[in-house]
C-alpha cells in the first residue's frame, strides 16, 4: 500500500480558473468546508490569459441591449443546439456577476459617465463586453483569487487529480499527487465540482496552456458521466502564425472590435465576400458603415470582421487555400490603418490593446500601430464537455458537478467571444451553490481504499517502464500532429476513420510511455499522465464528429458542407460502455418554451 495523506471536505473544487474560484467562493459563502485544487500555482490558470472581455448585457454603452438580445445572440451563434435553459440563465445573470466583481475590487474600463465600459465583439449585436484593456482574464482571476483567499479557502496548488472516486454511483472524492514532491493525497468529499477547463492541447496549433489536456472531461467520462457536443471545437480565427515558436498564441478579437480589418495578400478585405444569410440584415455592406459601427455609431451595422468565429475562421482557410494567403500561410489583420481615420491612432491602439502591442513587439518584433499582423486559425475552446443539469450544473453522476469550459451546453455549436468569462461566473456560482446544497443533504461517505490503490498504482506505472519505452513528449506531439491534420477545421469521413486507427496505435504507444528520474517535480511523468486524458478526449471528439454528418458552427464537414435540419433536433453524447469502449448516442433536445422561442423570433430582424 502506497502511503498517502487524507483530507476531508464538504465541497471539493478541482480547478482554480474563473469557474473553480467562483464555485469555491460560493460554496464557502454557503458555510460548508471547501477545498480547492489546481495543477499550476494559484492565479496562473488558463483564465488569466483571457483578453477581450466578459459578455454581460449591462446596456451601459447601448441601451438597446438586454438579456433577451444576449440570449438570442447566444442561441443564434450556437446554431440552436445550445441548452436553451443555460443560455437563458447565462444572459439573465451575467450582469449581476460582473457588478459583483466590481464590488470585490475589479477595476474595469469606464464610460464617459463613469460606468463599466463595454466593447464590440463578434456575434454580439451591441457592444457588450466589459473589459480591462485586453487583460480582462487577469483582472477576473486576480479578483476572485484574492476574494477566495481572504475567505479562507483551503488551496492545494500544483496538484494533479488522477482519478475520481465513485461509490454506489455517487462521487465520494478524488486521488491525486503533489507535483512538487510526487506524494499522493486522497480527498473525500460530499460533492465534487470539476472546473478543469479545456482540451486545446489535443491539437498542435493552440492558444491553450499546458493545462488544457481535458482532464475533467476524461475523469468524468471514466467515472461514468456523459460527455456532450464534443465535436464542437472552436478554432479562433486569429492566432499568431509567425515566428514559428509563437504559433497559436491568441490575438484577441478585441483588435477587430476596435476597428481592425482582415486583408488577403492582394490587400483585399475579403470578409465582405461571403456574409451568411442569418446575419445579412445586421451586417454592414460597405467599409464606411463598418467603421462607424466600431466607433460607436448606433445607426451603423457591424462590419463582417465581427461575424461569428466559425465563419471568420473558415473564410481565412478559404483565402489561404485559394493561394491568397500571407507569406506564412495566414492572412493580414490590420489595426494600423485606423490612423487614416483617427488622429492619435497610435496612442489609442496602445491604450486599447496594450498587451497585443507588447506581444507583437516583444515576440514578433512587429509594431502593430504601424504594420499589419499575420494571423491564422488556432484551436481555442471546446464547446463540448460534461453533460450537466442547466440549473444546478450537476452531471449525470450524483454529487459530481461541472462548470466552465469543461461543462457543455451553453454554447451549442459555436461560442461567442466573451461568453466564456461570463459562463465561468454564472455557472461557477451555480455549481458552488448547488454543490454546497447537495453536501448538506448528503453527508460525506468514506472512500473505497481498493479504488484508491488502483488509481495510485496506475499513476506510478510510467516509472516501471523507463528502459525500453516511448518518450511521452514524442507520443504527445504525434497525437497533436494527427488531430490537427485529421480532425481539424475541415473534416471528412475518411480522414476521421483514419484518425480512429491512429488513436488505437497512439494509445498503445502511450501505454508504453516511460520516464526517468524520481517523482519530484517531474514534467515527463506529468506528461505521461496527461497523455491518457488527451487520448480519451480526442476519441470523443473524433467519434462525435463522425456521427454529425452535417456542418454546423465549429464543426465543418467537407463531405457534408451544409446544415441539416435533422441534426438540429439532438445533441451527440459519448459515454463509456461497461467493457471500456466508447458509445455514441443521440439525445433529443428538450423543446423550447414559447416565450423563449418568441424572443428569438423578435430578434431576427
Amino acid at each position, binding site marked *: 500500500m502506497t502511503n498517502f495523506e487524507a483530507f476531508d471536505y464538504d465541497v471539493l473544487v478541482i480547478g482554480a480558473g474563473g469557474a473553480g474560484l467562483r464555485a469555491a467562493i460560493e460554496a464557502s459563502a454557503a458555510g460548508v468546508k471547501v477545498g480547492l485544487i489546481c495543477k*499550476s*500555482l494559484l492565479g*496562473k*490558470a*488558463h483564465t*488569466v*490569459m483571457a483578453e477581450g472581455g466578459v459578455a454581460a448585457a449591462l446596456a451601459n454603452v447601448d441601451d438597446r441591449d438586454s438579456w433577451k438580445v444576449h440570449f438570442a445572440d447566444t442561441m443564434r451563434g450556437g446554431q440552436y443546439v445550445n441548452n436553451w435553459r443555460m443560455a437563458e440563465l447565462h444572459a439573465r445573470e451575467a450582469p449581476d456577476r460582473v*457588478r459583483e466583481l*466590481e464590488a*470585490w*475590487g475589479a*477595476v*474595469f*474600463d*469606464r464610460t464617459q*459617465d*463613469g*460606468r*463599466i*465600459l463595454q466593447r464590440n465583439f463578434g456575434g454580439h449585436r451591441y457592444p457588450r463586453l466589459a473589459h*480591462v*484593456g485586453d*487583460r480582462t482574464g*487577469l483582472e477576473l482571476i*486576480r479578483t476572485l483569487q*484574492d476574494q477566495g*483567499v*481572504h475567505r479562507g479557502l483551503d488551496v492545494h496548488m500544483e496538484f494533479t487529480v488522477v482519478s475520481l472516486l465513485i461509490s454506489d454511483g455517487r462521487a465520494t472524492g478524488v486521488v491525486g499527487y503533489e507535483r*512538487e514532491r510526487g506524494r499522493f493525497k486522497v480527498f473525500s468529499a460530499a460533492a465534487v465540482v470539476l472546473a478543469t477547463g479545456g482540451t486545446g492541447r489535443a491539437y498542435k496549433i493552440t492558444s491553450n*496552456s*499546458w*493545462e488544457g489536456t481535458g482532464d475533467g472531461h476524461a475523469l468524468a467520462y471514466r467515472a461514468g458521466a456523459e460527455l456532450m457536443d464534443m465535436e464542437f471545437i472552436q478554432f479562433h480565427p486569429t492566432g499568431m502564425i*509567425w*515566428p*514559428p*515558436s*509563437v504559433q497559436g*498564441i*491568441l490575438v484577441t478579437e478585441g483588435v477587430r472590435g476596435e476597428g481592425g480589418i482582415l486583408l488577403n495578400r492582394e490587400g483585399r478585405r475579403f470578409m465582405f465576400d461571403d456574409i451568411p444569410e442569418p446575419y445579412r440584415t445586421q451586417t454592414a455592406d460597405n467599409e464606411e458603415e463598418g467603421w462607424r459601427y466600431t466607433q460607436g455609431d448606433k445607426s451603423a451595422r457591424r462590419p463582417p470582421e465581427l461575424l461569428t468565429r466559425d465563419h471568420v475562421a473558415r473564410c481565412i482557410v478559404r483565402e489561404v487555400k485559394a493561394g491568397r494567403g500571407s507569406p506564412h500561410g495566414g492572412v493580414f489583420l490590420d489595426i494600423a490603418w485606423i490612423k487614416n481615420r483617427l488622429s492619435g491612432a497610435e496612442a489609442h491602439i496602445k491604450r486599447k490593446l*496594450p*498587451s497585443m502591442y507588447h*506581444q507583437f513587439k*516583444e*515576440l*514578433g*518584433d512587429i509594431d502593430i500601430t504601424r504594420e499589419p499582423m499575420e494571423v491564422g486559425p488556432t484551436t481555442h475552446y471546446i464547446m463540448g464537455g460534461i453533460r450537466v443539469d442547466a440549473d444546478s450544473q450537476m452531471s449525470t453522476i450524483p454529487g459530481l458537478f461541472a462548470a466552465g469550459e469543461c461543462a457543455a451546453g451553453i454554447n451549442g455549436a459555436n461560442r461567442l467571444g466573451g461568453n466564456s468569462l461570463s459562463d465561468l461566473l454564472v455557472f461557477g456560482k451555480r455549481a458552488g451553490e448547488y454543490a454546497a446544497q447537495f453536501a448538506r443533504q448528503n453527508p460525506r461517505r468514506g472512500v473505497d481504499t481498493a479504488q484508491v490503490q488502483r488509481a495510485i498504482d496506475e499513476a506510478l506505472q510510467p516509472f516501471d517502464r523507463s528502459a525500453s519505452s516511448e*518518450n*511521452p*513528449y*514524442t507520443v504527445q506531439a504525434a497525437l497533436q500532429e494527427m488531430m490537427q491534420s485529421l480532425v481539424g477545421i475541415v473534416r471528412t469521413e475518411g480522414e476521421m476513420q483514419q484518425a480512429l486507427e491512429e488513436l488505437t496505435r497512439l494509445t498503445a504507444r502511450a501505454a508504453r510511455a516511460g*520516464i*526517468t*528520474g524520481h517523482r*519530484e*517535480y*517531474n*514534467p*515527463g*511523468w506529468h*506528461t505521461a499522465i496527461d497523455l491518457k486524458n488527451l487520448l480519451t478526449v480526442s476519441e470523443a471528439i473524433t467519434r462525435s464528429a463522425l456521427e454529425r454528418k452535417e456542418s454546423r458552427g465549429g464543426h465543418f464537414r467537407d463531405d457534408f458542407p451544409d446544415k441539416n435540419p435533422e441534426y438540429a433536433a439532438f445533441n451527440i453524447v459519448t459515454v463509456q460502455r461497461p467493457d471500456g469502449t466508447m458509445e455514441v448516442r443521440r439525445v433529443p433536445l428538450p423543446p423550447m418554451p414559447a416565450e423563449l422561442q418568441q424572443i428569438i423570433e423578435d430578434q431576427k430582424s
Partner: protein
Amino acid sequence: MTRATFKVWRSDDAGGHYQDYSVDVVPGMVVLDAIHQIQAAQAPDLAVRWNCKAGKCGSCSAEINGNPRLMCMTRLNSLDLLAPVTVEPMRAFPLLKDLVTDVSWNFRVKKAITPFTARPADAPDGTWRMRQKDVDRVQEFRKCIECFLCQDVCHILRDHKMHDEFIGPRFLAYTAALEMNPLDAADRVPELRERHGVGLCNITRCCTKVCPEHITITENAIIPLKERVVDRFYDPLTRLLRVFKS
C-alpha cells in the same frame, strides 16, 4: 540553422550544478522554447514552470545570463549565442528543483494585507461611478502578473533576507492598488509602516527595472505610499490638521 549552448541549473544531491545542453535555434525562438526542446529530447525530468508563453501568467520567471526575466519573453536573437546562455532559478526563493522555486512566501504575504473593502454604492442601482482618469493609476498596478521578478531582485529580500519585515515591491504595488482604488474604504497606512516595512525601501529602482509589465513600481507606488506614511506619522502639522478635521 545555428546551434547554441545553454547552461541550465540542474538540482542534484549536492544542491545543484550547471549542465550544458546544445539546442537548434530557429528564427523567433525564445529561451522557453530552448528549455522545452531540451526537455522533450534530452532531459524529460527537467523542472520548469510555464503556462501562457506570452508574458501573461508570470510562471516562467528565471535568471537568464544573470538577469531576472521571463523565459517566454526573452528572444534568443536578443542574446549573444556565441557564448553559452545561463539559465538558472530565481535566487531569492528556496529552490524546489532545477528552475522551479518555492514562491509560497508571496502567497502568505498577500494574505496579511488588509483586503479591498468597498465603500457604499453611489447609484441607486447599487453600482459606482468612477472616471477613467482615476482608475488609470490603479490599472497600472493591476497589470501585475505576479511573476515575482521584482521580489527576486530587491536586495532587502535577496541579500538581507528580511522576509519577515518587508513585503517587497510586488506587494507594495498591490497595496498601492488597493489604497488608490477609488472605491476602497479601508486604511492600510499603519500596517505599511508597522508590519510591511515600507520604510526599508531605499528606492534603488531595481524592481522597476526588471518588471516585465513595465509597472513603475517605485515612482508610482512606493514613493506615494511612503508619503502617506510620512504625512500620517511624522508630520505634526498634518497630524494636527487631521485631528481638527475629524
